[in-house]
């Protein structure tokens, strides 16, 4: 194995996009498949190589044809692999499943997927491993899981195999019976679901499926390829809760056959691992809810075992039964029992935090027998049976982790609201006391986590109890006290006030807090304030200044104290914070009364502040404040504050005003959410890059010495820039209809990024403008190949819109197909047909001669094509590259030149109804591309003529 493979695989899985920017997916896939075929590699190493195919099948096989080919390839590798390499064979099965499912081959019944299905069924039935060591059973185990996944992705795939699977399950003594059980129940569930969707389907059809009696089976399924439901609804879980509707199968009063099947599964369910038991019970729950003839009571015997377990997924499966069957399986006492059990589990000392939180979530989404309100909107509601006494077991404590504490805080809040607790409610008192304990911890230097948790708990408290004056008032006092000692919490305070105002538009709590904070800062400003605290205070003051109903005199008093005349600060950031407060004050409703002190502050800043930029801004503000009318002033400032800024024009003045919002908007390059523009291919004239047109010279010249012709031709390439470039033509256009803001784009700079190393870097292309419904601008791409291989170009663009904003956008990738690299022979313009023919022959001989050890290779391509079709094909695709005359019955000679120095020579001959393409090239790497190109052109030509 090449040394770098583990690294390459690792790099690929870490970031496929980054990895593929250096290699194409196609090349990487080809590399992988080649290595997998390499006999020198050990099977352990090969296991590693399969991983990318399992994890990123869709990326590596972008189309179903690639998927199909890859699957065929993998299957032949599987067939050649010795039975001993169990691990590798297992991984191959997984890769095959992934590739076929992800490329939709399984839903289109491709050859490969049918073959693969046969292979899997064959392995699943091969019990010869029973006497071998258990490792050999791994292959059968994997095959079962592949079958299960195929059925899960394409429900109904195995409906006709129910009886086969049932037999396999019954006969299997080893642990593998679990795999068959899980597979069988899934297939059964899907089969029943399918029948519920058919009109007139009933018990007979299901019986036929269970008994494998396909002659009575559903008519639509008579053909050997089973009908599969194409819509996604079959994938949805059928346990939908009280409001959901489950499709049902009418089967008459009793359905013994199905019932006995279910009983067997349930009786043996304890033989399965907990995870599989849960999956089995879930599937059987779905089946029973679809078949009303089977009473949910079949599950009764299992319930206590499930509810008594310590395994979260088993208890959950019982809860899902409750969801599906409500009072047809669970009495009111059962319901109360389950709820108590959930409360107990939510605080059980032996369970993990994640499990406990999950159980708490189950309480808040408890599937009640008779729900009063629909909880289908996903909101958390309390079950009726959750009494305050029960809920008290889940009261939050400071020793909880944050997530648990907040979840319990929310739950207890809901209980208090439900109980209609007022000012003297015990629950609210408890929650408030809890909040105060948290606050004490924060005050004593609690960690960042505790601080965040405290503010979240406070927000929860306000959302639920904002109307309980007694606590909210005292909370304001406590918070102010906290701020006084910890003003570095300012961002949390601002966030809390923002969110409370947003969530509780009817409450004035946030404004009250801000007003009191103003008082706190005013008091603090009477002493010397450290510089780092000052910026926090200014942030809070700026927030306070946004409140229309708070008087701002004391804010101004603080500002003038902060700008101490004795030692003018030079800090730009601080100055900016000062200006931020001033700017907000300039739009405050009580500006009239603030005018003079505000002007004083601005003047002081303009004259004394130690930073020129701040001085300039202050001067501008001062001028605006003292000269403009109020309306104009607020007009200018309001624009500066406008958010989003997509359609705001004339932003210049406002931008200078508001340092943050507008200006940064202008200076930032925004990113578009979708592609705005795209490049569309225009057929380029091949002649463009050729030094001279090959067809201009009609004059027949003397053929000349063959060697001399070749030498003269080759001599041209001593100039390495000779014929090394390809020009491709594109048009730039808008991508679909979209935002009218992007109708007019200016100074578009297109940047191209290569996805492989086969080409030289491309330089940027600038397009002056692109305006919808005007002439589309042309873009000429000059590509310089290092290796003439097809490629894909990543394109991005930066442009300006009419409103002056700059945008960055990604364009759809631009593929460069193989045939777009073909150039006509770059022969000197004076050469006539004779010399070219002679050059062709010499080249051919040169390439096909045995003593040439380089990259040369010859090949043959055959296809069925009539003579007429061949001529049409030559005219359509090969005209610029023809060296000989296209006469009927004659051999056609085609010379494809691929910059920088590769040639593909074709001799095309018609024989009876077949056409032979003899191929010679001086670069064997081109052969696969030539082959697929010929396949494409000949098949399309064949279609046109047949």
């Amino acid at each position, binding site marked *: 194995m090449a040394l770098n493979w583990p690294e390459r695989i690792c790099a690929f899985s870490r970031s496929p996009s980054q990895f593929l920017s250096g290699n194409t997916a196609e090349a990487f896939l080809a590399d992988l498949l080649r290595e997998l075929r390499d006999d020198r590699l050990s099977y352990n190493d090969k296991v590693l190589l399969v991983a990318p195919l399992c994890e990123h099948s*869709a990326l590596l096989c972008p189309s179903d044809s690639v998927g199909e080919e890859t699957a065929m390839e993998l299957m032949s590798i599987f067939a050649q692999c010795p039975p001993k390499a169990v691990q590798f064979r297992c991984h191959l099965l*997984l890769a095959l499943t992934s590739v076929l*499912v992800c490329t939709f081959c399984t839903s289109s019944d491709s050859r490969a997927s049918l073959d693969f299905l046969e292979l899997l069924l064959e392995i699943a039935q091969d019990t010869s491993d029973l006497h071998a060591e258990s490792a050999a059973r791994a292959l059968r185990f994997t095959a079962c*899981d592949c079958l299960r996944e195929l059925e899960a992705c394409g429900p109904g795939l195995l409906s006709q195999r129910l009886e086969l699977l049932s037999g396999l399950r019954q006969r299997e003594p080893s642990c593998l019976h679990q795999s068959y059980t899980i597979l069988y129940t899934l297939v059964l569930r899907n089969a029943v679901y399918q029948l519920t969707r058919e009109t007139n389907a009933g018990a007979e059809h299901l019986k036929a499926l269970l008994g494998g009696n396909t002659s009575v089976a559903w008519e639509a399924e008579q053909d050997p390829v089973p009908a599969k439901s194409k819509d*996604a609804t079959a994938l949805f*879980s059928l346990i939908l809760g009280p409001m959901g509707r489950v499709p049902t199968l009418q089967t008459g009063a009793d359905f013994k056959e199905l019932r006995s099947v279910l009983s067997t599964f349930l009786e043996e369910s304890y033989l399965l691992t907990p*995870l599989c038991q849960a999956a089995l019970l879930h599937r059987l729950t779905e089946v029973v809810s679809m078949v009303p003839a089977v009473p949910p009571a079949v599950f009764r015997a299992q319930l206590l075992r499930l509810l008594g377990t310590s395994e979260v*997924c088993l208890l959950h499966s019982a809860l*899902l039964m409750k969801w599906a069957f409500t009072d047809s399986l669970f009495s009111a006492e059962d319901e109360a029992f389950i709820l108590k059990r959930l409360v107990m589990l939510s605080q059980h000392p032996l369970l993990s935090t994640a499990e406990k939180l999950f159980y708490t979530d189950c309480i808040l989404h408890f599937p009640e027998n008779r729900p009063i309100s629909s909880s289908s909107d996903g909101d958390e509601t309390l079950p009726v049976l959750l009494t305050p006494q029960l809920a008290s077991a889940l009261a939050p404590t400071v020793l909880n982790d944050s997530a648990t504490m907040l979840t319990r805080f929310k739950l207890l809040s809901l209980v208090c609201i439900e109980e209609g607790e007022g000012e003297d409610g015990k629950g609210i008192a408890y929650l408030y006391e809890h909040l105060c304990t948290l606050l004490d911890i924060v005050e004593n230097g609690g960690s960042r986590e505790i601080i965040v948790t405290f503010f979240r708990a406070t927000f929860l408290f306000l959302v639920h109890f904002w109307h309980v004056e007694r606590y909210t008032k005292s909370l304001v006092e406590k918070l102010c006290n906290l701020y006084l000692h910890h003003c570095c919490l300012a961002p949390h305070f601002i966030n809390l006030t923002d969110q409370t105002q947003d969530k509780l538009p009817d409450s004035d709590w946030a404004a009250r807090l801000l007003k009191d904070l103003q008082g706190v800062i005013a008091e603090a400003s009477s002493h010397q304030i450290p510089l780092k605290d000052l910026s926090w205070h200014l942030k809070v003051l700026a927030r306070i200044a946004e409140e229309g109903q708070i008087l701002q005199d004391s804010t101004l008093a603080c500002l003038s104290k902060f700008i101490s005349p004795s030692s003018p600060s030079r800090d730009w950031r601080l100055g900016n914070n000062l200006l931020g407060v001033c700017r907000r004050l300039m739009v405050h409703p009580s500006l009239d009364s603030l005018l003079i002190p505000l002007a004083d502050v601005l003047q002081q800043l303009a004259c004394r502040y130690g930073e020129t930029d701040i001085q300039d801004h202050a001067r501008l503000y001062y001028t605006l404040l003292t000269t403009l009318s109020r309306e104009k002033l607020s007009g200018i400032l309001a624009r500066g504050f406008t958010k989003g800024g997509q359609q705001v024009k004339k932003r210049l003045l406002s931008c200078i005003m508001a340092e943050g919002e507008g200006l940064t908007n202008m200076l930032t390059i925004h990113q578009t959410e979708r592609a705005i523009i795209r490049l569309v291919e225009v057929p380029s004239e091949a002649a463009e890059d050729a030094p001279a047109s090959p067809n201009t010279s009609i004059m027949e010249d003397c053929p000349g010495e063959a060697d001399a012709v070749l030498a003269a031709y080759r001599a041209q390439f001593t100039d390495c820039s000779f014929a090394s470039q390809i020009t491709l033509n594109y048009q730039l256009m808008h991508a679909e209809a979209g935002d009218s803001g992007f109708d007019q784009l200016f100074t578009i700079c297109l940047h191209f990024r290569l996805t492989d190393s086969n080409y030289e870097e491309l330089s940027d292309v600038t397009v002056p403008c692109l305006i919808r419904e005007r002439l589309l601008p042309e873009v000429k791409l000059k590509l310089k190949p290092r290796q003439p291989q097809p490629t894909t170009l990543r394109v991005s663009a930066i442009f300006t819109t009419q409103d002056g904003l700059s945008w960055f956008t990604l364009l759809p990738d631009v593929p460069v197909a193989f045939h777009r690299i073909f150039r006509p022979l770059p022969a000197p313009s004076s050469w006539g047909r004779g010399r070219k023919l002679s050059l062709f022959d010499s080249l051919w001989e040169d390439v096909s001669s045995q003593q040439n050890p380089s990259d040369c290779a010859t090949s043959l391509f055959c296809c069925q094509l009539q003579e007429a079709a061949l001529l049409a094909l030559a005219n359509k695709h090969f005209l610029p590259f023809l060296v000989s005359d296209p006469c009927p019955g004659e051999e056609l000679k085609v010379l494809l030149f691929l910059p920088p120095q590769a040639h593909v020579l074709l001799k095309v001959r018609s024989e009876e109804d077949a056409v032979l393409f003899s191929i010679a090239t001086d670069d064997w790497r081109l052969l696969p591309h030539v082959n697929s190109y010929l396949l494409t052109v000949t098949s399309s030509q064949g279609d046109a003529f047949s």
Partner: protein
Amino acid sequence: MSLRALWVISHEKGENASVRFSRRFATVEHRAKTLACSTYTAVPEEGVVLQLLLTELGLSDPDKPYVALRDDCLHRQRSPALELRIDSPERGVLWPVLAITQGPLIFACLPLVDAPAEPRPPLASLLSVSQGLTFLAGLQSFLLSPGGKPDSEGLASRLAMLPAVLLQVCPLGTPLDMPQLGPPAAPTAPAILGNQKHPAWKTGFHRGRAVVNVTLVETVRSMQYGNQSRQDLWDVYGTVTCKCEVEGVLPNVTVTLTLPPNGSPLQDILVHPCVTSVDSSILTSNSVDSYDGSAFSGPYKIPFSPPLESFRLCSYTSQVPVPPILGSYHLKEEENQLLVSVTLKLHESVKNNFEYCEAHLPFFNRVQMGTVELKVSSGQIDVSKEKNLLVWGLGQKFPKSREVTMEGRISFSGSTPGPSDPLCTELTAYIKLYFKVPDMTLSGCCLDQHSVQVYSAAKPRIITSRELVSKDYFIWNSTGSAPVASGQINL
């Protein structure tokens, strides 16, 4: 019921984070795409997941005091299911990402949502979520066993084993079993099995001498305030652990727990999935319910068919009337000194025979201890090397009076500051007790040779043991304000 992706992440308090293992399941992803249609969000590359997960768990940018994305008060961590908001390459929301953190490790997975995406289905309706939790817990114990402590070498070697293990337990994203440590035991020959199917949770077959080992451990926790206004709290929970080496495919074993005549019933009983039948009477008693006195009080018969490895057969809680050790702790601040007075009383029902018993007195937010003048009525006192912790070793026995005291003063005169703690400021301080009493239970729950019945041809050797251990056993200074530790409130 399947997982779209799986990650194991390591970090050091939010820094140097890296994805140690990741696995995507392409076919499940394909299903997710089909199910979600237009609301589908692809799983981004692991670097993106890593960053988003750390932000969501509040671990990103540990040096920044406030980050809006991380710390917004509106945003409540809905653990265990997190929501990752992706900005690039495409906008979208990844939900429900399950994450379990343990020390420097994060185990995370993304279960498939097999319900319509809008409105968002409740977690409780998605089986894949609880399966994901079970699987993550299994993964956690696989990667961290046996001590539960992560060591970098052991972790690396187990991570390297993970791909092979996943092939056995979760080949295509649908977890079938939990990751198991060690090679599978000897396989069962089909001849032995006959008609009996082999349980999937049993990796092999025991051959040789039959031994059954049953251990009952009761753990007691307590919060004692020594304060009229605060009720002291304590609780007891027990776990029964078994290791059964018995022949047969599905051997039958029954463990019977009995209580003394006046014992209060065992509550909150949880049993292992291998328990074959559960009587409704043993599940009825619940600690969150009001106790009505008529509850079933044993004997508790637990029939099961054991797996090969050691496992927790059942657990319970019990309400005992008194704590095993009742303590009082008084501190008084005098200049640079603390006057200390401690009394510990051993309850008469508790066997006065400890394997160990230690009281730890840590001091936070103070400088180092200087002179320590303390008198104890029993045992001996050690000062830790860091000079901020007193360890009072009480040895194997309390004196005859069943009461020990500590009196004296400690001065804090060092120059180096000791550890800080936001809870224990000023006079808020605690004593933490560590003790273990062999061969006893607080609940009175009895387990001996006769409690274990094995239905097999060969008579097995039966070993049983009981013990009582303490955990989170706090005695708070009665002159300081102790935090409310439990939600025992009357609503």
